[in-house]
């Protein structure tokens, strides 16, 4: 039961048919709509994690009874003790990287390939530093180093709901940053083969939207993890 007939004999002799040409502006519009829908979709992922954070990092009735020394009320929002310095510096690096991503995009549109590649490298390095800051110091992959920098022993994933939610949120964000870094490397590699000429810069634009998006997610995650709530030791 062939559901698709091949080669209607009137105007096609060869085996492979040619699809009706989709003009580049239409394809570009599809790509843009698709990427933005992907971003909206991911909002629900990160919102789910944020919901878990505000759902779990709260004072329960038991805690008030068992820790009378703390002057907290039931339902008050909590946060674990994290290094403000590390949080501030990594956040700053990620935000600055977005500036260089804009530079790369503009350079690509104007056909300045050298400047584009240089800006992409700067973005890459800043993003990598952010990632290392989270993975090595905040996660305590190197406990001594983390201890030396932050002044307290790093939180572990098994440390109750604090560890669990912290690692889930930073981990999910780190996966996205890693994807973005790979994306940047692909752009750098392909631009050497002459891709992304002015007027055909969708690849750079897509990477830029994605990178900014990951940034914006962190703008919501940073206060949720580092700033909002009473510190619970």
């Amino acid at each position, binding site marked *: 039961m062939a*559901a698709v007939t091949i080669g209607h004999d009137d105007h096609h002799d060869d085996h492979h048919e040619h*699809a009706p040409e989709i003009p580049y502006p239409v394809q570009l519009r599809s790509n843009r709509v698709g990427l933005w829908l992907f971003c909206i979709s991911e909002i629900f992922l990160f919102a789910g994690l944020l919901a878990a954070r505000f*759902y*779990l990092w709260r004072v329960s009735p038991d805690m008030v009874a068992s820790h009378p020394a703390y002057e907290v009320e039931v339902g008050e929002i909590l946060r674990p003790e994290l290094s403000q310095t590390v949080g501030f510096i990594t956040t700053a690096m990620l935000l600055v990287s977005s500036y260089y991503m804009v530079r790369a995009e503009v350079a690509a549109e104007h056909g300045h390939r050298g400047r584009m590649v240089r800006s992409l490298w700067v973005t890459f390095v800043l993003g990598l530093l952010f990632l290392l800051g989270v993975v090595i110091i905040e996660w305590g992959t190197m406990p001594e180093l983390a201890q030396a920098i932050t002044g307290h022993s790093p939180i572990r*994933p*098994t440390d109750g709901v604090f560890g*669990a*939610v912290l690692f889930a949120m930073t981990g999910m964000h780190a996966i996205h940053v890693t994807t973005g870094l790979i994306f940047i490397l692909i752009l750098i590699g392909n631009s050497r083969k002459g891709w992304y000429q002015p007027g055909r810069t969708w690849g750079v634009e897509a990477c830029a939207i994605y990178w900014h998006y990951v940034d914006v997610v962190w703008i919501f995650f940073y206060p949720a993890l580092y700033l909002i709530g009473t510190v619970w030791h």
Partner: protein
Amino acid sequence: MVKAIVNFSHSKFARSFYAAFAGAALTWLLLSVAFLALNWIVDLADIAAPENAVALQGTVRLILAVLMGILGFIAGSGVLNGLWIGRFLYYAGRTALVRGLFGQGLVFAIVYFLMRDVRTIPEIESGVTQASGEAAIVLGALLSTFGFLWFSGVMTDWTLQMFGHHTELKHGGPPGEPEWLRYFNIDVNHKVIGIQYGVTGILVLLLGGALAILFRLELAFPGMQLFSTDDYNTLFSAHGMIMIAAVFLGVGALINYLAPVMIGAADMAFPRLNAFSYWIGVPAAVMLVGGMILGWDTGWVGYPPHSSSTQMLGVVLFLMGFYMNGFASIASAINLLVTVVTMRAKGMNYWRMPIFVWTAIATSIMQFSATQTVGVALSMVLLQRTMGMNFFDPSTVPPGDPVLYQHLFWFYSHPAVYVWVVPGFGLISELLPVFARKPLYGYKWVAMSSIGIALVGFIVWAHHMFTAGMPDTLRYIFMVSTMFVGIPTGVKFFSWLGTIWGGKMIYPTPMLFILGSISVFLLGGLSGPILATIPTDLHLHDSYWVVGHFHATIFGGFVFPFFGALYYWYPKITGRMYNEWLGKLHFWLMLPAFWVMSIGQMVVGLRGMRRRIADYDPALNLDFTHSLITIATLVIGWSVLIMIYNLWTSARSKELAPENPWGSRSPEWLAPSPLPEFNYLSPIEIIGEPYEYGKDEEEIYARPIPAIGD
């Protein structure tokens, strides 16, 4: 380098190798199933089996698998094409399915072998010295998905692009191979993908139905006759999840096949992504079946703390399989939305689209967003099991909370049931005007009611949790919001009645299924508010009433319209007509049987039957109704087999179907049947309203764009 790997995977040697794998793996699998069934029967009949029976079976299986592997390697070169088994293995070695399954198996085996002694963090902390293999299974399942995708070739074009190669979209079947082989290979055509979805969906439906019949046989009489309680748990859990997969596949089939044609496009906006959405479902299905083999006892909901602490490791594969299916949902929903936004034909504005497209939009809005939150919930359980990250255990400070899982889970899973029924509603609204020969009553209201159902669907999730320990205020809010669902659904019923009213009705099989689905959904709909009301829900929660309600909504909202659609578009898909008598037989067996089954379930529920329980007290006096439900289930099963026989044999008939057998105005009937590779021989334009049936026949809806100068 990447190019070289791609070329090697299409070499003669690789194909022989895959044929060998197909032969060996299939033999192994079939013999395993056969021995399992044999041992089960021997056990039931209490025959004394010889002591070394299991070892003997193992040896036989190994030897035969190796022999078939060797045969496959020879057959892969094509020398055995004179024999049917040789032909089978020859073509098997040329399918993406076999390549992908090999990749999945290979990656899983490597990861499992390397990781089998690694303990999960909870195992380390509790001092267990022997690893359960859970860590290996989780990582193996995750990476084996990539194994499937890369070996099958779904990712080839994207991978090449990453390394700077330009890739062209390839249309048509594999060169030099028969046409049907493209259905087993990576193909970007939306109709091929739609049929892949549809055929897989029906096969999965049969598997899920077979499981249901097995445990219905157990429930027909009080006391345990056929299974252990663990087996029963696995059976009903797997029935739930596999049927959900079947319905998703059916929705995918409808939307993929119909939506692009209906809006006058040649294909979806992202054809490669479309293929990816279908093929990632295959490794996910393998994981679900694997979970069934290992045993999994959490039901399809997988609530912690049971799912985060059960020792049955199948639950891990269930969580992973469910998670991977999410990628398919999200990708295909985004694809559909983009297609509708950018690929519509000339003149096809939003208020002139066939109504099914509106329901496809509503469904996709729910799929592409809400699916993410269930992914969060599932991955939390996996993280808790493997990394010891505590989300759900209330013993820490601050405490974890299992209700968090339920919130995240139902925020997706409630819209998910609307994902299944809304396309079904679309089919009802699409087909009723054709068979009543009247305009669809209140087009814009019907279109907006689909979106309304989608939006209300986001704010009702906690009505599944009235007994879970929520604050009272939340319960009231969710009770009221749930009642709001009745408004857009009522708009739809009103429109259906308005369309039927005074129509010149004809009753071929598709129309029967559409009318049947309205009656069945009415039953499901009316049993709903009783569950949405807190006081009655407290009594009926977790009873068979819920089972009856759920099956009535999904059969009425999806299964009946889906079967109706299969019959209706069958001449479009195959160019042949199905057998009308067998179609009517299918309907008149299935509808009464379904009523008996669903009402029977509600009755036993009211009389105290709990769901998910393998046995019941004879004093409840439920045997008669339970036996009746089981018989009804068997009748439904047989009627579906009749449909498959009908569709299979009709496809081989010589007689061609009429060009537009139903007198439909919808644009897909302007194109030849079966549809050409790019749907319309020349672009079409929309110049009228879609549902002006029975009015001025001159007022057409769609036509090919006239050439300049005509």
